[in-house]
């Protein structure tokens, strides 16, 4: 008896001695917080968080790789305590929520059941998707079964509906879903989500440079949820009022309804929803992530700058915009004329962005009044350059600099500032792009009797939007095609333009761009009597900020041959690590939506940069690509319903004023138009039809 007790005590003693020595020898420093965090995790060691056990998860939290909400089964208090241990104020940690990508769509004719299959996962494995659609929701409810909190149910339409109050953001549903329909994201993650090849995206959303979830907001308009529709648009586009008016809507080109019928009037619907917000007089509150304490300088208050500022602010950063002109807006204010985008509307839109807490300084020019050095010294952690493309190209012909000779942007910005210009009675605009058309229509509204547009090629080759060209034809602008100006002439050496001489052209062989090259016809000089000539043949960025900035670092910023800032189109990083760019300054003259999409993309890179993470391109990024199977070539069963016509002001009224030409759709018409949307790529099983196939 005694000996057995002695033996056990001895053995126990030995073991504990060995262990205590071992713990000294093999001691690894561990952050004391790991233990504290672990104590507040559920302790089930279930591995659902993706880590081998709670201690591994706790380590990841302390390393900062995972949010305090890493544990899938701990409750809200647990998450708050972990946040507290980690020094994040309780409650400020961004909480993720389940979010359903799929709004349901037209129903497949029946639900197909093969033998025992009753789960989405099995269906996805067996058929690589589903019978009718490779992309949409399967609707068999794996997510519902995965949720431990009863927060997900399959709604009446056959796709999951999330109860926000019950959702703790554990991510179990997302893991269970084989189709990425249901996703769990924090606000920041939602803002920084970019289209990927594997996403269930309709053709329109794939085409939109700002990547707006088009069918979602159209569905919301259809259901009368206008506020939600505006929120959906704002997730991707901070300037819906502007885009609703001036966007040439590339999305409508890919619209599948257009295959069998006319495309859906997507942009009109956007305008309808955003005008609804403005006319209601009450701003829809915009959520921002908790403050991060980082400061970012945004140079240029055009759409790219406003977009970057908006998204960075929503990510919790502190943003200051520096603008050289008297007011914010860039080309929206000083380029696009009043009759297309009223200043009142623009003002309201920009104020909404500033109201989020974005600071702005105007009348300060980057490179002249301040430079990179002063921004760094003032404690800015990153700099975004969105200075646009404001330098007009000139034709390089005789007499261009005489009085009465203008360049496009210069003319438009002076006109929009309300400067008195001596224009005479007749004018010619040289060029065929949107800027040229805007100049011509502006001249008409300034009271000129005759406005010509002189373009080298024919109408078919004009780069301006078709709607704009048609509108200017209606308004009585005379087009002179196949003409190349050779010089401007004055009368009696007065140094004031009174005539323009041009050569007639003919179309020759196609050039590199596939357009037929215009060739001059010898001896075909023709003269037009005009008092004003506006040259609007393209712009490039003004690189004064680089040339005049004395900061040594600035020499590292490289420009391209076209004076745009050298950048990576996926990440919008430049040759200086803390400088980012987007918009016309990065791409050359382009569209407002491109600048907006670019602003958000740059915001993502800046956010990664500020968090000290590597700036990598989005995985399987869809940028400018299409998901092949979603661009189906036939849409059976569509009965043609003509699109709702946009109301516009009568020609006689509009050429005498700067009042807005295009008007907004009425509510009834908006519903009618929204009903035309096919909700592409969101075809789900019909939950009401009995299953087909062997059971």
């Amino acid at each position: 008896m005694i000996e057995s007790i002695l033996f056990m005590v001895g053995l126990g003693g030995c073991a504990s001695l060995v262990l205590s020595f071992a713990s000294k020898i093999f001691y690894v420093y561990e952050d004391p917080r790991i233990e504290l965090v672990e104590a507040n995790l559920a302790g089930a060691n279930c591995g659902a968080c993706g880590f081998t056990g709670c201690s591994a998860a706790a380590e990841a939290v302390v390393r900062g790789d995972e949010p305090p909400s890493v544990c899938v089964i701990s409750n809200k208090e647990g998450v708050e305590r972990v946040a507290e241990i980690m020094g994040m104020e309780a409650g400020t940690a961004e909480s993720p929520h389940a979010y359903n990508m799929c709004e349901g769509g037209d129903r497949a004719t029946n639900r197909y059941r093969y033998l025992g299959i009753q789960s989405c996962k099995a269906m996805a494995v067996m058929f690589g998707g589903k019978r009718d659609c490779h992309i949409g929701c399967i609707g068999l409810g794996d997510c519902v079964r995965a949720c431990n909190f009863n927060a997900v149910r399959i709604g009446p339409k056959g796709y999951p509906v999330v109860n926000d109050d019950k959702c703790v953001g554990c991510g179990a549903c997302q893991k269970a879903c084989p189709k990425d329909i249901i996703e769990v994201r924090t606000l920041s993650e939602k803002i920084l989500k970019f289209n990927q090849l594997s996403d269930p995206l309709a053709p329109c959303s794939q085409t939109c440079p700002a990547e707006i979830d088009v069918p979602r907001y159209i569905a919301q308009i259809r259901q009368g949820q206008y506020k939600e529709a505006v929120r959906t648009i704002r997730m991707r586009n901070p300037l819906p009022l502007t885009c609703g008016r001036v966007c040439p809507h590339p999305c409508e080109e890919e619209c599948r309804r257009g295959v069998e019928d006319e495309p859906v009037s997507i942009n009109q619907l956007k305008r309808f929803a955003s005008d609804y917000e403005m006319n209601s007089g009450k701003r829809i509150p915009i959520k921002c992530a908790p403050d991060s304490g980082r400061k970012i300088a945004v140079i240029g208050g055009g759409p790219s700058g406003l977009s970057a500022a908006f998204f960075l602010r929503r990510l919790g950063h502190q943003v200051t915009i520096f603008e050289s002109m008297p007011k914010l807006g860039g080309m929206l204010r000083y380029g696009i004329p009043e009759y297309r985008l009223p200043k009142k509307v623009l003002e309201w839109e920009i104020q909404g962005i500033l109201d989020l807490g974005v600071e702005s300084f105007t009348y300060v020019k980057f490179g002249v009044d301040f430079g990179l050095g002063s921004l760094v010294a003032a404690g800015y952690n990153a700099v975004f350059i969105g200075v646009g493309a404001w330098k007009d190209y000139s034709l390089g012909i005789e007499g261009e600099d005489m009085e009465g000779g203008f360049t496009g942007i210069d003319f438009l910005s002076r006109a929009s500032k309300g400067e008195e210009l001596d224009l005479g009675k007749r004018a010619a605009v040289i060029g065929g792009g949107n800027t040229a058309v805007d100049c011509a229509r502006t001249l008409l509204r300034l009271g000129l009797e005759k406005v010509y547009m002189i373009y080298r090629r024919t109408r078919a080759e004009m780069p301006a939007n078709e709607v704009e060209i048609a509108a200017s034809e209606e308004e009585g602008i005379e087009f002179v095609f196949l003409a190349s100006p050779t010089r401007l002439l004055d009368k009696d050496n007065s140094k004031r333009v009174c005539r323009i001489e041009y050569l007639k052209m003919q179309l020759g062989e196609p050039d590199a761009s596939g357009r037929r090259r215009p060739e001059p016809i010898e001896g075909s000089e023709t003269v037009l009597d005009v008092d004003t000539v506006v040259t609007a043949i393209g712009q490039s960025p003004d690189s004064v900020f680089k040339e005049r900035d004395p900061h040594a670092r600035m020499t590292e910023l490289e420009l391209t041959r076209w004076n745009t800032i050298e950048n990576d189109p996926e990440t919008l990083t430049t040759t200086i690590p803390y400088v980012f760019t987007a918009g016309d300054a990065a791409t050359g003259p382009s569209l407002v939506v491109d600048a907006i999409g670019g602003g958000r993309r740059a915001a993502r890179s800046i956010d990664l940069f500020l968090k000290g993470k590597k700036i990598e391109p989005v995985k399987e990024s869809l940028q400018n690509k299409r998901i092949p199977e979603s661009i189906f070539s036939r849409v059976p069963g569509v009965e043609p319903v003509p699109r709702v016509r946009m109301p516009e002001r009568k020609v006689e009224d509009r050429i005498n004023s700067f009042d807005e030409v295009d008007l907004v759709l009425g509510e009834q018409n908006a519903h009618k138009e929204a009903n035309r949307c096919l909700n592409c790529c969101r075809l789900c099983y019909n939950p009401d039809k009995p299953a087909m196939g062997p059971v």
Partner: protein
Amino acid sequence: MGDFTVLAVSCIFVNNILLAQFLGNCPFLGTSKKMETAVGMAMAVVFVMVMAGLITWIVDHYLLKTLDIEYLRTVSFILVIASLVQFVEMFLKKSIPALYAGLGIFLPLITTNCAVMGVCLINIKEEYTFFQALAASLFYAIGFGLALIIFAGLRERIDLARVPKPLQDTSIGLVTAGMISLSFFAFKGMV
């Protein structure tokens, strides 16, 4: 060498620790829902079983037998195995962090694994020599891993099938386990 082949077949198939001796059923059911977890567990078991087999053999031969207190075998084995696992955990954490991260939670979980204890006791009961004990532990562990991985593979498939409600999850798991066990019965004729 022939002896070892026979030992291998006997430990892995005929007397499979899980399917023939029914030891270690809790990890068998608990960690077999996902292939990944099953593989992790199998690795940890191989590691710990071999270590435990070694140490307990030494303890038995040089302490318990010499002191003539074999009746304390079970108690002392528990103590030794538990401390061993702790020790190994600390050692790995310091010296081979990659392996430690891989085995993760499974290592401490095995402290209370009856299969490990069972193998140690069988080693003594069968009066294996040191090397035989070493080999037997390894083979038993491989048998454990094999059964666990087969089972996990099956359960992943079963997850996709339409199982009547009352039989879902663990119930169908047990039925399946029984069937695998029956099929392993066929190996009885081999040795």
